[in-house]
């Protein structure tokens, strides 16, 4: 028996390693070891006022800070029985889409493209004048620009508070953004083509795991229900009934399962679950790319997100500049849940408030924690028959990367109820 380690995992957000046990020349077991330190956000939130929660939980993760902030505000609004003004909802959607574009562009062009090009990082690609790297960075900058307009700043946005948003984006800046978006509608499609080319990916088996995503009538990042690829649809607040979480000794992230099976969250799961719906991007048959098809799904979501942003910006420009952006908040007791799609998959925030509006219980479930069991199962399935050590570690890195994991998120650590 021999253990082969891929350490550290690179070009992913966060610290971890993969341990592969080879027995009699055959890969017998795989562990994804998340070594990042738990940050005990629960101990931080309990007893604090509802007002403090959004700013604190956005610090769980930088890449997902916008969606964490929106999720916390929405769950607390649900706990307090609040309806926020429609225009505030649009500004939040714009922030989420900006985050989606930035995160997907970061993953595809800064983290994954070097694999397709055979380099260590995007820096070599820039040095060699690679146009895709340059354009990918410009797209990432566009996502950041949208987050800045809607959120007030790129990381840990300040515009979202419980009740709505602080202010509307500046009109002139929205008009300038619209012009920029028009220009991108022609630039983007050729840019994502490289991720549709099967030849760029290593051999793979079918992507494992029961697909899980927010369920709604169409294709959106927000909704009230959870949909599974086995046909189940359940109300968001019942998530604990269907998601089993258990700690494992080798990782600082807990494993999630449903009905004993691993779960798959993320762009691929979203597109597969929404297949046939009006505005859902159509995922072409990418023969035998397995989990690497998640990259193409992200590329297709970029095209979708760009269209959605244009639509939203037009709506905001047509709206009343003096419309209320914040609902009055009456603090009190309540329980609220928000299910939402972060760029890398399903995110759930759940809070209980006491009669003074202080946090009595908090539970946050993140996409990378949800995916962890599927990542291990996929590594074991895809790497069967690979014996060369270098090939084994290279390909293990690419499989983990395909999930676009966010390890800071996964070890934020809140106590399951």
């Amino acid at each position, binding site marked *: 028996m021999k253990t082969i380690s891929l350490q550290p995992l690179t070009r992913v957000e966060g610290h971890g390693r993969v341990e592969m046990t080879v027995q009699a020349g055959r890969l017998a077991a795989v562990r994804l070891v998340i070594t990042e330190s738990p940050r005990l956000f629960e101990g931080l939130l309990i007893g604090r006022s509802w007002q403090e929660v959004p700013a604190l939980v956005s*610090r769980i993760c930088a890449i997902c800070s916008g969606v964490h902030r929106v999720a916390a505000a929405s769950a607390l609004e649900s706990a307090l029985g609040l309806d926020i003004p429609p225009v505030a909802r649009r500004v939040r959607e714009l922030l989420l889409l900006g985050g989606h574009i930035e995160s997907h562009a970061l993953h595809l062009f800064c983290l994954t493209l070097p694999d397709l090009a055979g380099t260590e*990082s995007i820096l070599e690609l820039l040095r060699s004048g690679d146009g895709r790297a340059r354009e990918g960075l410009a797209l990432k*900058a566009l996502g950041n620009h949208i987050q800045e307009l809607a959120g*007030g700043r790129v990381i*840990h946005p300040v515009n979202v508070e419980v009740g709505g948003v602080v202010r509307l984006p500046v009109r002139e800046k929205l008009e300038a953004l619209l012009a920029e978006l028009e220009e991108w509608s022609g630039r983007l499609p050729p840019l994502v083509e490289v991720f549709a080319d099967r030849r760029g990916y290593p051999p793979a088996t079918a992507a494992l795991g029961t697909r899980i995503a927010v369920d709604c009538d169409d294709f959106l990042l927000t909704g009230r229900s959870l949909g599974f690829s086995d046909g189940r649809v359940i109300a968001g607040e019942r998530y604990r009934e269907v998601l089993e979480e258990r700690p494992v000794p080798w990782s600082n992230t807990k494993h999630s399962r449903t009905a004993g099976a691993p779960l798959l969250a993320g762009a691929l799961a979203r597109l597969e679950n929404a297949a046939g719906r009006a505005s859902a991007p159509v995922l072409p048959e990418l023969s035998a790319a397995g989990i690497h098809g998640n990259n193409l799904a992200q590329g297709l979501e970029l095209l979708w997100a760009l269209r959605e942003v244009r639509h939203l910006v037009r709506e905001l420009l047509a709206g009343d500049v003096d419309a209320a952006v914040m609902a009055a908040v009456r603090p009190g007791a309540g329980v609220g849940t928000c299910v939402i799609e972060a760029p890398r998959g399903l995110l759930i925030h759940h809070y209980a408030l006491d009669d003074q509006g202080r946090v009595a219980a908090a539970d946050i479930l993140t996409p990378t924690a949800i995916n962890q069991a599927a990542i291990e199962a996929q590594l074991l399935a895809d790497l069967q028959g690979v014996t060369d050590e270098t090939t084994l570690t290279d390909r293990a890195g690419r499989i983990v990367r395909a999930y676009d994991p966010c390890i*800071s998120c996964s070890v934020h650590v809140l106590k399951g109820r």
Partner: protein
Amino acid sequence: MKKLRLAYVRFTSCCGCQLTLLNCEEQLAAIDEVAEVVYFDMASSRPDDGGPLDAVLVEGSISRPEELVELLRLRRRAEILVAVGACALTGGVNVLAGGDRIALCEGVYGECAREKLTFPQQPLCRFVRVDLQIAGCPPERSEHLRLLGALARGGLPALSEYAVCMECRQRENLCLLLEAQQPCLGPVTRAGCNALCPSFGAICEGCRGPVTEANRSEESRLLLGLGLSERQVRARMERFSGVTHEDH
């Protein structure tokens, strides 16, 4: 000009400081011209050669024995060690976590808790000499660029030793504290962000930590005057000020 041998390392944090460097999309190629990026695992698979470093940027606090060992190793390797962001400077928002850490860990991990040896988040300066502190949660892109520019020329950037309020006044913004009657922390917070949030129209939450000689009692009086409770005032002012250690 000789290329700067540079590493960007992260310990316990949210990755926001490292992401801020990657958010300098238009300047990445220029950074690559002045710096040899020896280690930056979030963005590069280049294996660390373990050799001496001209500078190391460190994001995050120290909360595991392995992190402490690595920090000490980096200090020995690097000419200049820069602490970047709230977690590296003070431990960040996570130091606010009260309660019994062992009980909390057991509540989360059950039986597995004992195998996960961690301790409360500590700032870098508790363990090693820190040559420069770049504040912010996260620090701005411009601060990263100024830092790398100065390091490439063999120096360190000058830091702003005044409050966010000064920058806000220079930008001729409406005063959110006195005119809009909102609990803004601009007067007691270290500058360097060019009053980013107040210029957008949102109050300063103090993410850059307290400015030297901050008039905290006057700020408290103003916030109480706006109707905040003492508890609320304390919660706002403590969020990014860390905890005081006797060895400071």
